[in-house]
């Protein structure tokens, strides 16, 4: 094998142009967002990639494709405003049912949340199939259990959820302004990061 093997020459000096070209190629090559660690793993030199990524993002601003960051994961995506011209390339998106979308939204805003809590908000039972659908789409996943009797599984959203809905982070979720004042979704202000739910619930 005569190809240069990446990751084997930690001593070579960092060529900033090459570095930028490799990172650019990696982002373009991948259909999925890449974390900085994943990008780093492909580089022949140990250098921080954050600045390179941010430079590239600035570079592509205003072009037909843009470099996006979602919670530390980076991807190239077509600019939203040219989407109408890409109609033929668009996926005939299987439209999700209202039940699935509501369930997804509740998980997004209230995570980590149990199925019972979702049902309480929706006023109807959540079928197993609805959650399965969201898990299959890669948008939600179970994480931990709530420390209450029965120790029910709690659900959270995934990075793919952010990517799909063009959200830089969970903080980027549409605000529910008219309701935050009413204290209905106060829990959203500071998303709990353990499986522990809002104690005042």
């Amino acid at each position: 094998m005569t190809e240069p093997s990446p990751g084997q020459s930690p001593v070579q000096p960092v060529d900033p142009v090459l570095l930028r070209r490799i990172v650019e190629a990696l982002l373009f090559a991948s259909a999925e967002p890449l974390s900085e660690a994943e990008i780093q793993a492909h580089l022949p030199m140990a250098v921080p990639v954050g600045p390179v990524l941010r430079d590239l993002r600035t570079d592509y601003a205003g072009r037909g494709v843009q470099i996006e960051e979602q919670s530390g994961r980076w991807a190239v995506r077509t600019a939203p405003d040219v989407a109408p011209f890409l109609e033929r390339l668009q996926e005939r998106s299987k439209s999700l049912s209202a039940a699935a979308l509501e369930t997804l939204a509740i998980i997004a805003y209230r995570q980590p949340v149990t199925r019972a809590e979702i049902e309480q908000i929706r006023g109807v039972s959540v079928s197993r199939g609805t959650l399965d659908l969201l898990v299959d789409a890669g948008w939600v996943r179970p994480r931990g259990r709530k420390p209450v009797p029965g120790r029910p599984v709690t659900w959270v959203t995934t990075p793919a959820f952010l990517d799909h809905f063009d959200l830089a982070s969970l903080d980027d979720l549409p605000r529910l302004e008219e309701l935050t004042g009413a204290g209905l979704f106060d829990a959203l202000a500071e998303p709990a990061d353990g499986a522990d739910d809002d104690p005042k619930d």
Partner: protein
Amino acid sequence: MTDALDLVPEDVDEDALVVAVEGFSGPLDVLLVLARKQKVDLTKISVLTLVEQYMAFLDEALRRRLDLAADYLVTASWLAYLKSRLLLPAEEEPEAEEALALAEALTERLQRLEAIRGAVVQLRARARLGVGRLARGAPEGPTTATVDVVAGTLPELLRAYARAAGRSKVRRLRMERRPEVVPIDVARDALRAAVTDRSRWQRLEDALPSPLRRPTVARSGVASGFAAALELARTAEIEVRQSGTFQPLYLRAR
């Protein structure tokens, strides 16, 4: 399940609403749509009016023999209870207060569901992947190729050497065949058979039969013969005589 939001515009009339009952995801959904018909902020809806609206909806649905799930009826009876409490004079505490709390809780649930519905609408409108934003159509990677790399640890190496070297050492350590020995009882029996004459002294070596004098066993034969001779002398079967140190040993019967 269809989207109740699309199915039931806010200014739908009661009939259309009832016909659309299959489009509702449950009583709470129906209550929310009815509340919206009041065309006020959800925080300001009249719960009493809402109860009446719901009862009218239910009556109409039943009149048309629509197949309603049981929870629609459960909700109806709960709402009827709530209404009766709300109609109590304000002095009738604590029941009236309790009713107000229940009404408030109902309003909050409606608001919460409304908020989620609003979030769904907003999420749908975002530049979704595959629709509003496209990923690379012909992904090229990145890929991860696994390459087998042999690895070993020093302990493994040392153990291997000890094993190999140890094996060769065993092989080179040529074990000598165990020397043949003449058991004492064999020598004793041989001497008993050979030394039978009282009148004649004979040398120990001569008294031993030739099989015990083969070169491979000669020394052992002499040693065992000597021990056997001493034993036979002790039991007074033979006499032993030696003229001096290192001189031949002579035997004769007694």
